[in-house]
């Protein structure tokens, strides 16, 4: 409701022509659950900012004040039911959608870091169970002091790298009042590069918490949220999964005060596939800021029964689908699980360990339980986690075993191995368009205009047709999909002129129908948030399951692609005509390019419709092996209307690739410098054509000419009367070929043929000079 008011105010103010916004920061980068928090949103092109798009429920905008093009002040309210931890948000404006930035939700009130706590004696006093928002500048260290009673838990946990602001790898320590270090931590499996340090207060007193970059780096972008207090923070839960709908006992592990038992009610309404959900632990009313991960599966759950260190004493389970759960407690330990499978079954066996943020670096083996024979192994097909697809060779009992790849162990080395018959799947995503950037990873359709993108649709265990549904598109927005190009699919979105300006997150569903039944798969987009050395490695990623789509105010231009009236011939050239329609307020250049090039087709990357001109041709070429087929192509266009690039597209139009009418083969020929020669090109008529065709001999050396030859679809050869010059360079000229031009309806179709023709030119004999 609040968002709509803000939007209305802006639209009443008239159309603005800002490009998609850039979301630089949200300060503070985290907010307390169940409370209202004022945040400052900074970035670029924010003057028409309308509101937040949150991928998780429970974050509402209470007030929204656009201060200027680079700043918005908002009051956010987080519902008490909202999960702890990372919430991915975007800002949407009247002209676009920003990139994703994580916003953290925590259990504690925020405290602002002081500017004078960089030395130990000036440690900033903070209350227990608060969240400090601070920044570590280069080589800086921040100190905080907190009171604790003997036996209290003192925990400090930082969100640094996870905030997605900067390549910032924090390090934290707990010190006693004299500065003696009691505990420190740099990284741990649960928090990636972020630290979690926890100890039990040995005496009543004041304790110090320090935080810095692990190698004494830092910058103005090195934001952190440091949770300080007596709260629990387990790092693992066992089992880390269960069957949907069940109320299961679990043990939280890794907290400094030891294991904590609780019961968890798992949701019953999940799809037929397993899902991962966040699980927050509380202790005496204090909640852990970082949730753990719990798999919820529709199939049975089996817990290991020690001892299960070999095939003989393997923990038994039902036939797949089944999930086995265990902990690698001891060095060199391996856990074995037994199940029965039937010949011909194809099983996906996946270990969930690091995916659940367990320290375990899994190694998976599959065994024939009767022959005690190893059948398959995997170390790290899914990051550090193991995965393999297992074809059951015969009816019988099989075992899976899980161990640490380095034979490490620990009380939090939990894992879950899911053994599941292969489920046909179609995955849909919007891939990265600009390397290491979120640019155009959303859909922004100007009113009365179009926007095109390529979605990646990957089929696994499924070979049938499918269609894409976009059930949550804003009113007035429709989409048209072209034919698949390998694993990609062109999609053109169109907004009606009267579609309301709005921003939304929409589902994308791939619906397939195979012989075994219908298939529905959702959308999953991986977003890379932080890149750094080595090789721009993506240190922080997030995954979202809805596509961001907005209807923007009208763009000041639109582009149309004229459907070609003739096909492009294999080994031929053609061009596509793009026309532009401009609003009188805009006269600038428009850059256009192909949304995609069909296989075998190449085009100039970017062609510009110059300022004050209304059309341009995009030259395209077809290779000899370009598939003869009709494709649905579109062009996309961008123009700077004054505040950065605005993108639109044409509609999809058919582009046909055909075989050439004539193929040929040039006879070898030779002559002397200055002497004429006839070169014959033998013609092979592939397809009849009306009228005549012009055959031009190409690739001739300097100072050699050959008139074109006109042929009809009945000619079998073209003979070129080639003239040379006394200064024509002698030698073997091997690059001769023919260019065949056929006209249809006044449009030329050009293709090359007869490549590799050879003309040898010998030096003319020297004239004898009379002796004196």
């Amino acid at each position, binding site marked *: 409701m609040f968002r709509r008011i803000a939007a209305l105010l802006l639209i009443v103010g008239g159309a603005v022509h800002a490009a998609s916004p850039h979301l630089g920061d949200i300060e503070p980068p985290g907010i307390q659950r169940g409370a209202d928090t004022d945040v400052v949103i900074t970035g670029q092109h924010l003057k028409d900012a309308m509101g937040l798009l949150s991928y998780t429920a429970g974050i509402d905008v209470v007030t929204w004040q656009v201060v200027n093009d680079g700043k918005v002040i908002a009051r956010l309210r987080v519902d008490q039911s909202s999960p702890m931890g990372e919430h991915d948000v975007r800002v949407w404006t009247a002209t676009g959608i920003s990139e994703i930035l994580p916003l953290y939700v925590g259990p504690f009130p925020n405290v602002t870091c002081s500017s004078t706590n960089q030395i130990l004696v000036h440690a900033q006093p903070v209350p227990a169970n608060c969240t400090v928002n601070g920044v570590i500048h280069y*080589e800086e260290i921040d100190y905080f002091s907190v009171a604790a009673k003997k036996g209290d838990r003192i925990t400090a946990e930082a969100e640094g790298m996870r905030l997605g602001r900067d390549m910032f*790898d924090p390090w934290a320590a707990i010190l006693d009042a004299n500065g003696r270090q009691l505990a420190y931590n*740099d*990284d741990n499996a649960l928090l*990636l*590069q972020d630290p979690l340090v926890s100890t039990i207060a040995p005496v009543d007193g004041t304790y110090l918490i320090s935080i810095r970059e*692990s*190698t*004494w*780096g830092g910058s103005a972008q090195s934001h952190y949220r440091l949770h300080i207090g007596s709260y629990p923070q387990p790092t693992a839960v066992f089992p880390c999964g269960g069957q949907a709908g069940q109320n299961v006992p679990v043990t939280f592990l890794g907290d400094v005060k030891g294991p904590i038992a609780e019961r968890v009610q798992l949701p019953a309404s999940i799809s037929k596939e397993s899902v991962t959900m966040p699980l927050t632990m509380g202790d005496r009313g204090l909640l852990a800021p970082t949730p753990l991960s719990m798999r919820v599966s529709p199939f049975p759950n089996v817990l290991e029964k020690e001892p299960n260190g070999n095939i003989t004493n393997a923990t038994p389970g039902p036939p797949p689908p089944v999930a086995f759960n265990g902990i690698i407690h001891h060095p060199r330990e391996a856990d074995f699980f037994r199940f029965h499978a039937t010949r011909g079954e194809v099983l996906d066996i996946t270990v969930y360990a*690091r995916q659940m943020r367990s320290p375990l*670096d899994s190694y998976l083996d599959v065994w024939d339980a009767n022959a005690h024979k190893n059948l398959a192994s995997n170390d*790290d097909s899914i*990051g*550090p986690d193991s995965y393999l697809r297992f074809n059951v060779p015969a009816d019988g009992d099989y075992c899976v075993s899980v161990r640490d*790849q*380095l034979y*490490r162990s620990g009380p939090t080395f939990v894992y879950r191995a899911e053994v599941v018959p292969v489920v046909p799947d179609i995955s849909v995503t919007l891939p990265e368009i600009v390397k290491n950037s979120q640019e155009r990873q959303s859909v922004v359709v100007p009113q009365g205009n179009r926007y095109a993108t390529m979605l990646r649709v990957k089929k696994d265990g499924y070979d049938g047709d499918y269609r894409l549904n976009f059930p949550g598109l804003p009113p007035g927005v429709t989409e048209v999909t072209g034919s698949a190009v390998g694993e990609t699919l062109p999609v053109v979105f169109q907004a009606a002129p009267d579609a309301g300006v709005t921003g939304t997150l929409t589902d994308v569903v791939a619906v397939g129908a195979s012989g075994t039944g219908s298939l529905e798969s959702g959308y999953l987009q991986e977003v890379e948030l932080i890149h750094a*050395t*080595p*090789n721009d*490695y993506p*240190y922080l990623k997030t995954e979202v399951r809805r596509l961001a789509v907005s209807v923007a105010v009208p763009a000041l231009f639109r582009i149309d692609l004229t459907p070609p009236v003739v096909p492009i011939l294999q080994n031929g050239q053609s061009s596509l005509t793009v026309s532009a329609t401009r609003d009188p307020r805009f006269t600038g250049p428009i850059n256009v390019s192909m949304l995609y090039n069909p296989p075998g087709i190449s085009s100039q990357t970017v062609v510009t419709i110059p300022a004050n001109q209304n059309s341009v041709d995009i030259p395209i070429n077809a290779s000899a092996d370009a598939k003869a087929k009709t494709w649905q192509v579109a062009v996309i266009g961008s123009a700077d209307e004054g505040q950065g690039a605005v993108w639109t597209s044409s509609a999809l139009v058919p582009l046909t690739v055909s075989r050439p009418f004539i193929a040929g083969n040039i006879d070898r020929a030779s002559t002397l410098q200055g002497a004429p020669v006839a070169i014959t090109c033998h013609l092979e008529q592939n397809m009849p054509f009306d009228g005549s065709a012009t055959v031009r001999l190409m690739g001739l050396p300097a100072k050699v000419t050959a008139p074109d030859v006109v042929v009809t679809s009945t000619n079998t050869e073209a003979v070129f009367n080639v003239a040379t010059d006394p200064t024509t360079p002698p030698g073997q000229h091997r690059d001769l070929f023919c260019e065949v031009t056929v006209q249809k309806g006044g449009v030329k179709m050009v293709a090359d043929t007869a490549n590799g023709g050879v003309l040898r030119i010998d030096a003319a004999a020297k004239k004898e000079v009379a002796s004196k």
Partner: protein
Amino acid sequence: MKKPLMSGIGLRVVLFVVSVVVASALFLLAPGRGAFTKAALQVAATPAEKDLKVVKDINSLSGGAAGAIPAVSGTGLVAALRLDRPMTFRNDVLPVLTKAGCNTGGCHGAAIGRDGFHLSLFGYDPEGDYNRITREMGARRINLAIPEESLLLLKATGSVPHTGGKRFDPSSDFYKTVLAWLDAGAPHDPATVARVTSVQIQPAEMVIEGQNETRQVHVTAHYNDGTVRDVTPLAVFLTNNEGTAKVSPDGVVTSGDRGEAFVMARFDTTTVGSPVIVVPKGLAFTFPQVEERNYIDRLIDDKLKKLRIAPSGLCTDEEFLRRASLDITGLLPTVEEHDQFVASHDPQKRARLVDALLQRPEFADIWVMKWAELLQIRSSTDVAYKSASVYYDWLRQQITANVPVNEMVRELVSSSGGTFENPAAGFYQFETDPLKLAEDTAQAFLGVQIKCAQCHNHPFDRWTMNDYRGFVAFFTQIQRKKGEDPRETIVFDRHNGESVNPITNKVIPPKYLGGLQPTPGPEDRRQELADWLADPQNPWFAKHFANLVWAQFFGRGIIEPVDDVRVSNPPANPALLGALANHLVSYKYDFRKLVRDICLSRTYQESSESNDTNEADVRNFSHSGIRRLRAEVLLDCITEATGTKDKFRGLPLGAHAVQIADGATTSYFLETFGRSTRETECSCAVSVDPNLSQALHLINGNTVQGKIENGGLVRNLIAAKMDDKGILSNLYLRTLGRLPTADDLKTLMPLLADPAGREKTLEDIFWALLNSKEFMFNH
């Protein structure tokens, strides 16, 4: 595992007697023509050193004769023996080629051979050499129908043009040996051909009075079939100091100038050596009455007495304070520390000073830096700064916590896991080539350089290609993968992957240097190696680290360079090195205690001023050496003296250059003054050699002048109303650790007569002090 040999005089006496007895008892046969069993030896008389010469004479007389040969000792008896072993290529022909120099690096032993004929360098590949001589080039190198016409002999005798000229005469034993082998059909060696197991040289050491005196050395080879053979005519002789002791091709040592030399003999794959001391004849010398404070002084004095060298007297308190402060902490003593120390009348004040300095964190800084150099901690395109930083922090924790050095090395070598989670695994992150890892490990932790043996047997040491490949085998099963954080490397063992001798194509199982093999098992090979390195019985480890510690306090090792331990580079004082190593082991590898022993010795506390007897001595620690401060320490001292602060990456303002974690951290000053870039484990990476850039930087660069200005020390002293003499004293104390002498004051005071230019003049004097040699050197 070998136990350390006996040390000291007793050992030498025993070795001398044994050597002479063996030498006297040797029977002499033509080269390659015979052997005898140990049981055949009968010793009937007590020989004297001069008997050796007689043995040499008999050796030459007996050459070439076949069959049973009577051998006669000058004073004793050697039993007549029978030739009972057939001629072999490996044991008879190849030694002749080696002795004649055919297979040296400059001749056919070059990597590509010479003039179309390639032999393995010093005969490391007998099988290959046999094939090349008898099979290559259509076998034209030998002529079995007319052996004398064999190209091998024609070339060697210079009968046909030969780039290498004439190598031996047709009448020589060498010629006869080769000819006899050809006569016999150039037979291929049986698989059971005897192999050399050890080589000995006698006498084990020599002290020669006067110039142009001669001594014969003898070389005996022991074979695995139990036979022993005098191979003196076949051994290649070398000396490391021609001026003091020359050695002829047949093993006659001729004394030269006063000094020390090491005479070596190489036979088969082994090099052995014998130290030679030459002193003037009839030198009137009385060793002075000096205090022996501990075992170090006793063993140093033993050697000095032998050399007829008198040690220098003790250094002054001021010198000691400055020297010990720089050596132990890398920092200059403060003015207050100077005043307090000089004023103290405590007879134990030097010991108390050493104890206090050892407790300072700067002591750990120095050794963390030295270890960081040894372990090559340095970021690069392949190794993230965080990896280097985490590794360095681990190292600092180990040294600060006084973890025994053998335990540190045990943990490093056996480490597995992620380099962030287990920083010790960083040991395997910087170098990934198993060959280089083996070389680096041997050099860093044992001081042994085995690189040569990668391609051929080590020409000046004992290491064969199989030794090399056996040591490499400890590192061939290491696997690495990137961690979840790409800056982290996970090190683990894949339990497969072998080391292969490229000449024989045979898999060489893991073998410790020195010959022993670990017990075969499924366990990590590196754990076996780590345990061997850390074992007190390890023949090199403790000595190497004792030597490293020693070198820090004397500017050179007892073996120098410290990481070039080899037969041909013997320790200057083996007994001392052994004693230091034994003490280190008895201290459970707590090297602080060894540092204490060293610093409390009279030897360390001697003056750098020499006397008539020791002025030429540079390797026997008869007086304190004068050592330029290494780059990091020099910069820290300039910074400290000027009262300024430096800023280095990852360190707070005011940290010391010795605390730099990453060898890739750039610093013009440090690079100019030769700090290690940590790209190699070699001790040579640290340079204290002077060059023009250093002088120009100190004089014209911004370091000294900039720090004088930024520190404002002179200004502050003037503001404190200190008089000229007081200020000069302060400047002298904070730079040179002493007060200005009367001469100094006489020169300087007139310069300060003009009050207008007083501050500038004092700054110039400060500048001059910081540019003085006395400042830049520890003395």
